[in-house]
C-alpha cells in the first residue's frame, strides 16, 4: 500500500486513540489552544475519540496512541493502526512505559479484579465476565507489540511538546524535544 | 625440637618399611565420589574379613584419595598386584581377600591398561589414590615436604619465583594469568604483612577437581602454600574453602593440625627464620566469592561483593596488605615444580600452556571422573579415548567448558588441542576444568538458560548491568524456551550480552553472557527453531504448555 506524496497544500491525516489511559493526554492535546486553530487548516483529524468516526481509516499519516496495552482488543487495534499508519506516536507515559495502568502488574489479575469489583464495590459487587475483552496478566507499553516511530513521554506530555511534534511532522523534520519532555 | 630433613627422611623410611612389611596393600578410595557409593562400608568389611581370615599380618587396608574413575565406584586397588576392582560391595570382601593369592575376582576387575589410566599424565593428582589423605606420614613417604625443605634451605625467594616463572605455570582457576608474574608482584610489594590465600571456593557447577585434590592430597596444598609464603614474603595463609565440601574441610583441618604438630607449619620451619601459619575460612554458598576481591571481603567476614580493580589484591588485598591468591590446582603444582625444576614443567604441554590440566569429566560420557592430561591434548582423545565416548550409542553434540563463564565446543572442533588459546579462539575458556559432555539429547537454548539462571542467582547485585541484565537475559531465554518469543528477541539478547559483558563491574558479570554468546554462535538454528516453529529438537523444552496457557 503506497501513498502519493503530499503537496504542502494537502492536509496531514492524523488519528488519535485511547487504549488504557485516563484521557489526560488528549486533554493536553487540546491545551495547545489557539495554536491548534492555526494548525487546523493543515490537519485532517480522521479518527479520534473526539470525532465521530467508527472505523479506523486507511492511509493515516500519524497516529497518536494514548494509553497502555492491557487486552487482546488493544492488540488488535494496534495492529490495525500499524498497518494503516505511516507514523505511530506513543503518546504519554501510559503508552510509553505502561505507567499507572501497569501498576497492577505487581499483583495477580485475579487479585486486582477481586479488589476492584468485589471488595471495593459499593453497589452490586460482581466481576464482569461477559462481553468484555480478555485482560492480560501484565499491562505493557505500545512498543512491546508494534514498532513505534516516536516516543512522547509525560503524564501528560506538555502541550508545548505535543505542538512541537505536530509542527515537526508538518514540516517534515525531527522534533526537538530536548528540555520539553520527561517522564511524569 | 625443630624439624630437620633427617626427621623427614626417617618418617618416610618408617612409613615405607611398615607398608612393605605387609604383603598386600589394599587401597580403598574414600574421596567423596566413592564414599557416596558406600566405600567406607567396603573398607570396614575388608578389614573385618582380613581379621576373620587371620591375615592381619599380611594385609593392610588403606584409605586413599580419588582414583579418578568416579563412574564405577567404589574403587579399590591392590598393590603390589596391580589389580583394580570397580563397583565393589561389602559382600565382595571374602572373595577379594580370598583371591589375593590366586586369580583376581574377574567380575569386579577393572583393566588397568584401560586408556582412562594409560593416557593420563599425573602431576597434580600424582598422589591421589596413592597417599592416605588423613596421615601426614603417608604424604612424607611419597616425597612430601621435601620441596619445602629444598626451597627454604637451598633457594632464595627470588630463585623460587624464577623457577615458577620458568615453569610457565598459569593460573588454573580460569583466567590463566601467569603465576610467576603474580608472585613477583607480591614479592616486590614493600610491606611487612603479606598473605597467601588459596582459593578453594570451587563454585563452577560441573567442576570437582579442587575438591578431589583437597580430599585426596591436602598436604600438597599446604606445602605449596608454605613455599608460596616463603617466596613472596608472607607468613600467614588462608584457605577459603566451600562449606559444601565437608569432607575436604575435615581433611584440611586435620592436615593443618598434623603439619603444625610436625613443624612444617609454625615458627622456624626446617630451622630457618621462616614462619608460616595457615587458617581455614569457610565459604558460605556464594559463587561470586571466587572473584578475588569478593573472596577477600568474605575472609574479612564481610559481604562477598567485588570492588573495582585496580588496586589489585597483589598490592592491596586482605586487610589492605599485598595478597597472593592462587587456586588449589595452581598451588598443587608448586611442590613438583620446586622439586623437579621449572624447566621440567615447561617441557610438558604446549608453547603457551605449560604442564598438565585436570579435567572433571561429567555429563553424557561413559567414564565420568577426574583426569589429568598434558595441556594441548586433543579434545577427541579426552572424550572418546579417555572418556570412553558417549553412552547409549548417542551422538556427541558439544562439550561445555568453563562453567557459567565459559562456552561450548561443538563437534567440528573435536580435534582441537585443549589449551588456553585454542579454547579462547572458539569462544570457550579453559576455566577451572569442568567439562560437561552433551549428547544430542541436550537443548542448547536450555543449557544457555541454565547458566543464565545460575549467573542471575549468583549475581551479588552490586552493579546494574549484572544485576538487572542477567535477569533480563534470563527472562528472554525463558520466553524462547517457552515458545513465547519474537524474532527481535534475538537482537535484544545479543545487545544485552554485549552490554553486560562490557559494563559489568567484575568477572562474574563480564563473563555471564558467554554461554549465550557461544550457543548463539554455533547453535543459532536451535534458537530460531524455538522461536519460529515452537520446536525444541532435543525435546527438553516444554513449548506446548506455554502456548496452551496463553491460548
Amino acid at each position, binding site marked *: 500500500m503506497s501513498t502519493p*506524496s503530499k503537496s504542502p497544500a494537502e492536509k496531514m491525516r492524523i488519528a488519535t486513540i485511547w487504549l488504557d489511559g485516563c484521557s489526560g493526554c488528549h486533554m493536553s492535546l487540546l491545551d495547545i489552544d489557539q495554536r491548534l486553530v492555526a494548525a487546523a487548516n493543515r490537519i485532517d483529524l480522521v479518527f479520534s475519540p473526539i470525532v465521530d468516526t467508527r472505523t479506523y481509516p486507511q492511509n493515516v499519516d500519524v497516529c497518536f496512541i494514548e494509553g497502555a496495552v492491557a487486552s487482546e482488543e488493544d492488540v488488535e487495534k494496534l495492529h490495525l493502526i500499524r498497518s494503516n499508519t505511516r507514523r505511530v506516536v506513543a503518546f504519554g507515559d501510559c503508552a510509553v512505559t505502561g505507567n499507572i495502568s501497569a501498576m497492577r*502488574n*505487581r499483583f495477580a489479575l485475579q487479585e486486582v479484579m477481586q479488589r476492584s469489583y468485589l471488595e471495593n464495590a459499593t453497589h452490586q459487587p460482581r466481576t464482569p465476565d461477559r462481553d468484555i475483552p480478555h485482560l492480560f496478566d*501484565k499491562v505493557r507499553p505500545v512498543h512491546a507489540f508494534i514498532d513505534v516511530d516516536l516516543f512522547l513521554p509525560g503524564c501528560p506530555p506538555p502541550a508545548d511538546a505535543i505542538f512541537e511534534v505536530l509542527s515537526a511532522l508538518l514540516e517534515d523534520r525531527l522534533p526537538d524535544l530536548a528540555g520539553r519532555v520527561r517522564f511524569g | 625440637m625443630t624439624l630437620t630433613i633427617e626427621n623427614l627422611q626417617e618418617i618416610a623410611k618408617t612409613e615405607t618399611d611398615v607398608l612393605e612389611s605387609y604383603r598386600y596393600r589394599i587401597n580403598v578410595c574414600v574421596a567423596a565420589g566413592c564414599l557416596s557409593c558406600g566405600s567406607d562400608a567396603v573398607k570396614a568389611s575388608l578389614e573385618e574379613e582380613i581379621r576373620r581370615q587371620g591375615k592381619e599380618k599380611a594385609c593392610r587396608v588403606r584409605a586413599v584419595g580419588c582414583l579418578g574413575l568416579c563412574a564405577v565406584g567404589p574403587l579399590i586397588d591392590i598393590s603390589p598386584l596391580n589389580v583394580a576392582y570397580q563397583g565393589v560391595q561389602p559382600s565382595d570382601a571374602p572373595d577379594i581377600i580370598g583371591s589375593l593369592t590366586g586369580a583376581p575376582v574377574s567380575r569386579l576387575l577393572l583393566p588397568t591398561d584401560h586408556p582412562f589410566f594409560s593416557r593420563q599424565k599425573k602431576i597434580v593428582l600424582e598422589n591421589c589414590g596413592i597417599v592416605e589423605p588423613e596421615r601426614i606420614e603417608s604424604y612424607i613417604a611419597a616425597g612430601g615436604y621435601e620441596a619445602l625443605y629444598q626451597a627454604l634451605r637451598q633457594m632464595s625467594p627470588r630463585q623460587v619465583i624464577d623457577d615458577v616463572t620458568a615453569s610457565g605455570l598459569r593460573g588454573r582457576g580460569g583466567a590463566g594469568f601467569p603465576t610467576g608474574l603474580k608472585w613477583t608482584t607480591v614479592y616486590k610489594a614493600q610491606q611487612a604483612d603479606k598473605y597467601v590465600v588459596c582459593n578453594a571456593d570451587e563454585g563452577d557447577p560441573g567442576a570437582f577437581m579442587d575438591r578431589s585434590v583437597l580430599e585426596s592430597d591436602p598436604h600438597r596444598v599446604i606445602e605449596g602454600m608454605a613455599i608460596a609464603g616463603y617466596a613472596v614474603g608472607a607468613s600467614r595463609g588462608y584457605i577459603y574453602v566451600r562449606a559444601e565440601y565437608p569432607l575436604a574441610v575435615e581433611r584440611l583441618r586435620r592436615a593443618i593440625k598434623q603439619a603444625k604438630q610436625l613443624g612444617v607449619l609454625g615458627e622456624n620451619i626446617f630451622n630457618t627464620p621462616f614462619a608460616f601459619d595457615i587458617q581455614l575460612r569457610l565459604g558460605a554458598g556464594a559463587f561470586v566469592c571466587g572473584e578475588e576481591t569478593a573472596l577477600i571481603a568474605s575472609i574479612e567476614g564481610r559481604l562477598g561483593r567485588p*570492588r573495582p580493580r585496580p588496586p589489585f589484591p597483589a598490592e592491596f588485598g586482605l586487610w589492605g596488605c599485598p595478597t597472593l591468591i592462587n587456586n588449589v590446582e595452581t598451588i598443587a603444582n608448586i611442590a613438583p615444580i620446586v622439586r623437579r625444576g621449572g624447566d621440567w614443567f615447561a617441557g610438558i604441554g604446549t608453547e603457551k600452556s605449560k604442564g598438565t590440566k585436570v579435567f572433571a569429566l561429567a555429563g553424557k560420557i561413559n567414564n565420568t571422573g577426574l583426569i589429568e592430561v598434558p595441556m594441548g591434548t586433543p579434545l577427541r582423545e579426552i572424550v572418546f579415548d579417555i572418556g570412553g565416548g558417549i553412552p547409549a550409542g548417542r551422538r556427541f553434540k558439544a562439550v561445555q567448558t568453563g562453567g557459567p563463564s565459559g562456552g561450548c565446543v561443538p563437534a567440528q572442533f573435536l580435534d582441537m588441542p585443549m589449551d588456553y588459546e585454542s579454547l579462547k579462539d572458539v569462544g570457550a575458556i579453559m576455566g577451572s576444568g569442568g567439562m560437561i559432555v552433551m549428547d544430542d539429547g541436550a537443548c542448547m537454548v536450555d543449557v544457555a538458560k541454565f547458566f543464565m539462571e545460575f549467573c542471575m542467582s549468583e549475581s*551479588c547485585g552490586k552493579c546494574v548491568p549484572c544485576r538487572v541484565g542477567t535477569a533480563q537475559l534470563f527472562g528472554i531465554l525463558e520466553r524462547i524456551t517457552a515458545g513465547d518469543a519474537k524474532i527481535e528477541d534475538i537482537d535484544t539478547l545479543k545487545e544485552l550480552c554485549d*552490554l553486560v559483558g562490557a559494563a559489568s563491574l567484575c568477572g562474574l558479570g563480564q563473563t555471564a553472557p558467554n554461554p549465550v554468546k557461544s550457543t548463539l554462535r554455533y547453535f543459532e538454528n536451535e534458537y530460531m527453531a524455538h522461536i519460529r516453529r515452537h520446536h525444541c529438537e532435543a525435546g527438553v523444552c516444554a513449548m506446548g504448555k506455554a502456548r496452551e496457557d496463553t491460548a
Partner: protein
Amino acid sequence: MTSNASIPPKPRTDVNPARIYTLRINGREDETILTVARQNGIDIPTLCHLDGLAERGACRLCIVEIQGSPKLYAACVTLVKQDMDVITDSPRIRDYRRKILELIFSERNHVCSVCVVNGNCELQNLAVKLGMTHVRYGYLNLTHAVDASHPRFSLDHNRCVLCLRCIRVCKDIEGAHTWDIAGRGIHARIISDLNQPWGESETCTGCGKCVQVCPTGALSEKGKSVAEMTKRPEFLPYLQMMRKEAEP
C-alpha cells in the same frame, strides 16, 4: 508498506548526536577521573556517586573509555594517571549509559507520575539527560513492599535503585549503620537492623540523612504528596569537612 521517496526516515528520538569529549590528564594522580572531569567542566552522568560519600563504582553510568584499553572504567573509582587519555563521551558510551539506565527503569516500579519526588528526582533527570525516551527491555514487575512504620519517613522499595547511598551515609556519616542490604542479585533490598520495620529499628536515630541523600522517591518524608518532596544532599560535604575539623 513500500517506501516513498518523500518520506524521511523514521525520526529517532532515542538517539542524540554525540560529541566525543577527550580529557587528557597531566599532573596529579590521586584524584578520580570523575573529579578531574568535573573540575574541567566536563559532565559525566552519575547515580550511586554522591559528593561526601565513599565511592562504590556500582551504577556504571559513569563509565568512560581510556585510550589504549578495550575495557570500560567507572570514572568515580578510577584514578587518573599521567598521560592518560580519557574519552568521557562517545556514541558507544552514550549507548551503554542509556541502556544501563533502561535496565534500572525496567527493574522496579519507577512511575514518575505518582511519585513524591516527581520533578525533583535524579533518576527522572538522568532519563532526560541521557535521552532515554522509553525502555526497550521488558519490565520485571518485581513485587516489593512499602515500609511506612517510621513516624516521620517512609520507604518504598519499589522506587529503590540500590545505589546504597542511605547505607553509606548512615554507616559513615551518622555512624548508626541502621541500614544494610539483604539478599543478593535481583532480590537484594534495603533492610533496617534485623529486617525489622523501620519504625521499630533499635538503632535508627531518626536523623533523616538517608532520606536527603536518596536519589529517588524510595525514601521520603511523610505528609508529602506527589511532586512535593525535594532532597537536599548538599549538607554532606559540609558535614564531612566539619567532622574532619573536629578530629583531634
